[in-house]
């Protein structure tokens, strides 16, 4: 294999991994920290994408537009936590139904406001020529950003007072309250961060494809699979599952075909869950004990 071909394959592999991280991190956080399975996660991505293209069309530069989307989705997430989710903690089916209803509502509202046709913005940055191949600079940016997202989320949850409180509240909410933690406020902030990550993800994906009200459905399957394969520990789970699934998808896609890549991804997910029902994180926990 020539060097340029190797680099191109590595970049496409890391691209797949980073896409999975970007679409699944918010979902993993809400699930791992709060036990909330957010069926509207795909629609949060879609809203983030719409906010971004609306802002770009209004003349705002893309990075700022994406940040605005993240902040807007964070705020919306906190409102949704206050109005809908906080009534339903501990009732996983009720949470799933409520967020599924929410996803229908969001799709309906977006169709009313933006119509059903696809909107888009051009992919920023240009391409690099590498030997006989072309690499999109934007995909390199996404790879770097996925790393930054994981590192930042890790630092927030491992090193800040809020993060310590959120982890305490996630494992023993009553005891957390008894040591002075306002668990209800911590949950609101956590869901806000999860929603902001979804908004950021939608914004980052917006330039890659057309944005329509069904935009989220294209990513939600991958996002859920990553979270399920990853297991309960949000960061470690999402990153290791993204590495595994993204790596397999990109590897098989490059060698055989994208369809075979998707098949391989499904097969590996099924195998992982057959032998590790608690996901990759379960394996790691077992090894530590």
């Amino acid at each position, binding site marked *: 294999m020539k060097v340029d071909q190797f680099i191109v394959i590595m970049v496409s592999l890391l691209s797949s991994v980073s896409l999975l991280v970007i679409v699944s991190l918010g979902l993993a956080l809400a699930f791992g920290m709060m036990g909330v399975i957010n069926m509207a996660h795909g629609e949060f991505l879609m809203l983030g994408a719409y906010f971004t293209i609306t802002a770009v069309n209004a003349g705002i530069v893309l990075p700022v537009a994406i940040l605005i989307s993240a902040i807007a989705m964070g705020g919306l997430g906190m409102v949704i936590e206050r109005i809908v989710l906080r009534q339903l903690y501990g009732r996983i089916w009720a949470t799933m139904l409520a967020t599924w209803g929410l996803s229908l509502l969001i799709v309906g509202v977006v169709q009313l406001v933006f119509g059903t046709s696809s909107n888009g913005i051009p992919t920023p940055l240009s391409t690099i020529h590498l030997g006989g191949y072309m690499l999109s600079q934007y995909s390199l940016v996404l790879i770097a950003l996925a790393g930054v997202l994981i590192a930042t989320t890790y630092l927030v949850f491992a090193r800040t*007072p809020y993060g*310590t*409180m959120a*982890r*305490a509240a996630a*494992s*023993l909410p*009553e*005891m*957390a*309250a*008894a*040591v*002075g*933690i*306002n*668990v209800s406020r911590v949950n609101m902030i956590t869901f806000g961060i999860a929603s902001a990550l979804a908004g950021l993800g939608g914004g980052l994906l917006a330039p890659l494809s057309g944005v329509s009200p069904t935009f989220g459905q294209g990513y939600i399957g991958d996002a859920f699979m990553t979270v399920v394969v990853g297991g309960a520990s949000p960061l470690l789970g999402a990153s290791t599952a993204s590495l595994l699934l993204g790596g397999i998808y990109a590897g098989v896609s490059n060698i055989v075909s994208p369809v075979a890549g998707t098949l391989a991804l499904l097969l590996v997910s099924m195998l992982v869950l057959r032998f590790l029902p608690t996901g990759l994180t379960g394996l790691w926990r077992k090894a530590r004990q």
Partner: protein
Amino acid sequence: MLEVENLVSGYGRTNILHAISLSVETGERMAILGRNGVGKSTLLKSLIGTVRPKSGSVRLDGQEISHLAAHERARSGIAYVPQGRDIFPTLSVLDNLRVSGFGRSVRARASMLDDVLTQFPILRDKRSAQGSSLSGGQQQILALARALMSDPKVLLLDEPSEGIQPSTVDQIATAIREMNVQRGMTIVLVEQNLEFAAAACDHALIIDKGEVVLKLRTADALTNRELQHQYLGV
């Protein structure tokens, strides 16, 4: 001073405590004794607020706190060491301690952390270990130290001697007395183990059927076989 008046509390429609009244003076070490199921743990949970009382009053230094949520009661000066300890399993020993001090200033937190690690050297040795990896006795010490981190006025303990080996039990009784003497903390200790209660506390309230039936010196409870048989099921 901690005053409880006509407190009614329980789970769902079932009342466990029927208009219980008691008071514990500031700086007192008070044991709460009674058979299994008379409502001792429910009393402590109603005091810290993880069980919300249905009626009645709880006052801390004259301030009514029964309407406050658990985290507000904790920040107003009550700390709680629950049965089974409830160490945060995925947090390190240090984070288990820190998490209880976030209501205080950074400086107060740091100096208290240093005090606590000096008082309990085992926690300094294990500071980076996950809470779940500690032994039962080490977890109990961590739970005590965690309660200390918020510098509470009142410390509520629910059967800290349960399932702990004898040498650690002595260490815990000593630590409870020290917290009381050195920091002036009021101690409310729920116990089944009468000897441990006597080692940690001077006075005891005996609860039966959701009410206080007797107040006495723990030393007297130790020698009174009839009383032990009637109220403690010994």
